């Protein structure tokens, strides 16, 4: 019973509690900030408390009976808890960072409401055991991210928020139709029932295409990725939260949940997905090399790295899936860190154009070093954690026999090195081109420094996340 309470509170406390943040905001700023952080931390603690249970192989289920197979089910297995712990952990750091970042702008009450609501619905997505509720939570994240991207109410920014909203929502609607097709053949929206119904057969091509539309648009993969760089107009903690750490991982999570642990896809579709993400990896990496807006570069980098995660899952081998899971963790941390560093730089220099910056390492040493460490992790350079996830994805790809694809992604990894070196050098090295900016507030700086440090620890102590990931993998692959 205790575990069921943990599970329910991981989802519902932030989801419902988020609506209390504006009220708290009326009373005091600090109360609201503290409440928001407490809600997210509670989710984190609940998720972490569930780890020993799920690692031992047990699955926690909580269901409310509803007619027509519309039961509300939340389930905690390894995959769900891994995702929940990862995203709530990164979100907690981002919220702490927001305390200092956001306090100078308007609409703070809405900001904390949306961020907390977003995290709550993210929890809903990962724990959801029913396709219908997965869809509902999915749309709540779309609404929250729409408000957050348009946080600065300028006309151009709102248009970009609309673009992100429209692309992801149209994708999600297509996905809903796909879910209904599955419902027709399985007679239920519940994942457990669907799994039983699809033990011998693959998912139908039409349903797969429709669901993939939703997944690819949410996870910003070619050809539905262009909203992500545009969404860089949001405040930096938002871009870190949505576009690096959490939001874009939703699509990947759905892919893993639906097409690895519940149903299977045929070899042809597997190859099509792999081909698509390979193109996504290369084209977005190339775009990142040309772009001059620092947040857009990092956003393109996200698109490119997402492709690596997709690859790990799509090849469907043990090493690949475990690598994909670890990649979610490592990339979430590192990319979140990059966006947060970019936020400090942006507030210091009042520009996002990398051609107008330079030499900032002299005045912002901690930010620079943190940025460098996070960049190393994204590149996959040890001793940062990204090294292992990148290797495992390659290993999984090769175990699946896709040697040619491995080389395409090798080119992608080389481009990653190139564009991250480029952005680091233009911001932090060389001649100073703007008035020397000061380091951000100690709270913001310590947030990015701790993200960098955690990425480093994740490399040294890779044993623990890797153990979790491999147990989750075995559960997902049913071995």
């Amino acid at each position, binding site marked *: 019973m205790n575990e069921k309470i943990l599970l329910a509170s991981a989802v519902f406390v932030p989801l419902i509690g988020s609506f209390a943040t504006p009220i708290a905001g009326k009373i005091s700023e600090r109360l609201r900030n503290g409440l928001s952080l407490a809600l997210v931390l509670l989710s984190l603690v609940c998720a972490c408390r569930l780890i020993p249970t799920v690692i031992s192989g047990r699955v926690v289920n909580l269901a409310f009976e509803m007619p027509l197979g519309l039961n509300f089910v939340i389930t905690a297995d390894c995959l769900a808890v891994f995702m929940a712990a990862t995203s709530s952990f990164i979100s907690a750091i981002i919220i702490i960072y927001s305390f200092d970042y956001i306090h100078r702008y308007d609409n703070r009450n809405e900001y904390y409401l949306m961020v907390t609501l977003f995290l709550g619905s993210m929890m809903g997505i990962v724990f959801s055991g029913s396709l219908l509720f997965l869809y509902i939570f999915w749309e709540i994240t779309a609404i929250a991210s729409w408000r957050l991207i348009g946080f600065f109410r300028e006309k151009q920014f709102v248009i970009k928020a609309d673009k992100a909203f429209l692309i992801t929502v149209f994708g999600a609607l297509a996905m809903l139709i796909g879910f209904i097709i599955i419902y027709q053949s399985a007679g239920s929206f519940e994942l457990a029932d669907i799994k039983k119904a699809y033990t011998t057969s693959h998912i139908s091509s039409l349903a797969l295409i429709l669901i993939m539309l939703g997944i690819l648009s949410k996870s910003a993969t070619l050809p539905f990725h262009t*909203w992500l760089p545009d969404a860089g107009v949001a405040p930096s903690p938002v871009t870190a939260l949505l576009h690096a750490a959490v939001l874009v991982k939703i699509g990947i999570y759905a892919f893993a949940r639906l097409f690895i642990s519940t149903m299977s896809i045929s070899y042809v579709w597997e190859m099509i997905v792999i081909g698509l993400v390979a193109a996504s990896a290369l084209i977005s990496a190339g*775009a990142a090399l040309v772009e001059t807006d620092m947040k857009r570069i990092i956003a393109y980098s996200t698109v490119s790295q997402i492709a690596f995660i997709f690859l790990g899952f799509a090849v469907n081998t043990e090493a690949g899936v475990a690598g994909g899971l670890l990649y979610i963790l490592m990339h979430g941390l590192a990319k979140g860190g990059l966006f947060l560093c970019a936020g400090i730089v942006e507030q210091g220099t009042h520009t996002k154009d990398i051609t107008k910056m330079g030499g900032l390492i002299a005045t912002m040493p901690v930010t620079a070093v943190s940025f460098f460490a996070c960049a190393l992790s994204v590149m996959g*350079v040890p001793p940062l954690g990204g090294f292992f996830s990148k290797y495992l994805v*390659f290993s999984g790809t090769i175990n699946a026999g896709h040697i040619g694809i491995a080389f395409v992604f090798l080119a992608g990894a080389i481009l990653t090195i190139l564009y991250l*070196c480029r952005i680091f050098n233009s911001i932090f090295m060389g001649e100073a081109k703007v008035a020397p900016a000061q380091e951000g507030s100690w709270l913001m700086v310590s947030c990015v420094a701790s993200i960098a440090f955690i990425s480093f620890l994740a490399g040294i102590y890779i044993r623990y996340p890797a*153990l979790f990931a491999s147990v989750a993998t075995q559960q997902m692959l049913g071995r």
Partner: protein
Amino acid sequence: MMSSVLLALTIPFAASGVVLIIPNKPRALKEMLSLLAAFATLALSLSFYGRPASASFDWAGFGINLSFRVYNFSALLVIATSFFAAMLLMYSCVFMRGRENTKLFYSLILMSVGFVNGGLLADNLICLLFFWEALLFTTYGMIAIGKTNAFKTATKAFIIVGIGDIFMVVGAAICYNLAGTLRISELHIDSIGLGALAFVLLMIGALAKTGSMPFHSWIPDAATDAPLPFMAFAPASLDKVLGIYFLTRISLDIFRLHQESWASYTLMTIGGATIILAVMMALIQKDYKKLLSYHAISQAGYMILGIGSATPAGIVGGIFHMINNALYKSGLFLTAGSMEKQAGTTDLEKLGGMATRMPVTFACFVIMALSISGTPPFNGFFSKELIYDAAIERGTVFYLAAIAGSFLTAASFLKLGHAAFLGKASEIRPNIKEPPIIMLVPMIVITAACVLLGLRSAIPIRLILPVLNGYISAQEPLTDFAPNLSLIAITLVVLTCALLNHILGVIRTGSGLKAVDHIHYAPLLHSIYDKAEKGIFDPYNIGTGLVKIFSVGAAWCDKAIDRVYGSLIPTAAETVSFAIRKIHNGSYKTYILWSLAALFLVIIVMFNGLK
């Protein structure tokens, strides 16, 4: 025993951390601490030799363990690494004084020592790669500390070596797929099919670390931009130690290179080309450090040629040469450092007559220059002769490349020595004298090692020989490296020719610096040299050019996709709604007509259905 092995990593790492956080003053504190750590590591590593040990800890699963193995070869190289680190830190203590970021520099050097030791002792491919790739950021840091724009060179080094490392990651993944283990001492893979691919990928990584062509072009840039001790430390010694170590491991243990295999020919070709092309560039340099840096590339060619020959003499010669080169090349860089510190420049046009001002530096230079040119009885002679033996056994063309390389090496060092130390005394600074004793000691020790390894060349060869265990069957006599007298004779003739060439050049031009101008400005060569100097042949420039074209294309694709959302879909939506608005003109007649038409359609469909 194993815990003391781990100390070889933890001492440098801990010291590196402590050096970074202790206050800047007093200056001696961080210097003493770094030195202490380096000498402690050296003392520790000396205890490893002859005491094999191994240990393994679970790490990331999927065959990835944190495992270490001490055996004769790795122990020998750990000793070498620690020795160089100690010598160079000692030298840096004086050399780096008065510069910025010295603390960071010491810290990075110590960290690199830890990583290199980790790489040498690792017994798991991923564990090795973990330490190996981590050197990327220490390299970046140490170069970037140099001049203001040194970060560009640092990036170049980072990218070139980083690309090699990613190839290795994929290579390791293939090895795991084929062998089901990542444990290096258990990995044995046939180099056919996928195995061949894995060998090539791992080889690329090893060559990139060694600095052979085409992964060389950051080294000459670093010579001018990076702090000098870095040059003596990484491209001259540690990178070679690590790269050649790994090349040996993959060639002998993992893939079993055969003499008639394509891999052997590929390696020898790369080696031969690297020797010739790099030394040709060295010949025309007019800067002390830059000239040396091209030799750091060229000498790597000898090692690769030796190991690639897949003959016992070649392999032993290659490894012996690696150690010799690390000695004299780092030592030569230190003499360049004396010049930079005391005379304020390394530009050969401005230097001259330093032999009388810095007799000790000059003596060290002469001995090490003789070593690198392969003159008996110094160490370089013995390793080069072994490589010549191997080369001529495998093909005359490889031997010709090696011996021509020797000629040019000797010629360029004659030029360098003449221009810097002899001739008219330069007056760039008054009262130029020997550098402080702390800087001289490492130079003298390294020079002495060059002499010792030459006079007692049998000892190092005997220490290296066990590397061949398991590779060469036990029946073959392993110690039989009888000197090939005719080859020695040829070597001596070639060296004499180099001397004559120099004398001729000096007589013609009247200057030591211009002694090789007749080669530099030879008809066809002249234009090639010009292009090479401009970086037209630099693989890095070519590569970045190609990537730029690709990325512009990719960005165009991306923009095209964005147009679909930005204008195509909105335009389509507007057009449709405009059309619909047009049809809704408010006239009842139209609406009734539509309704009738629709009714008609329904009726037709229904009737069709009834049939």
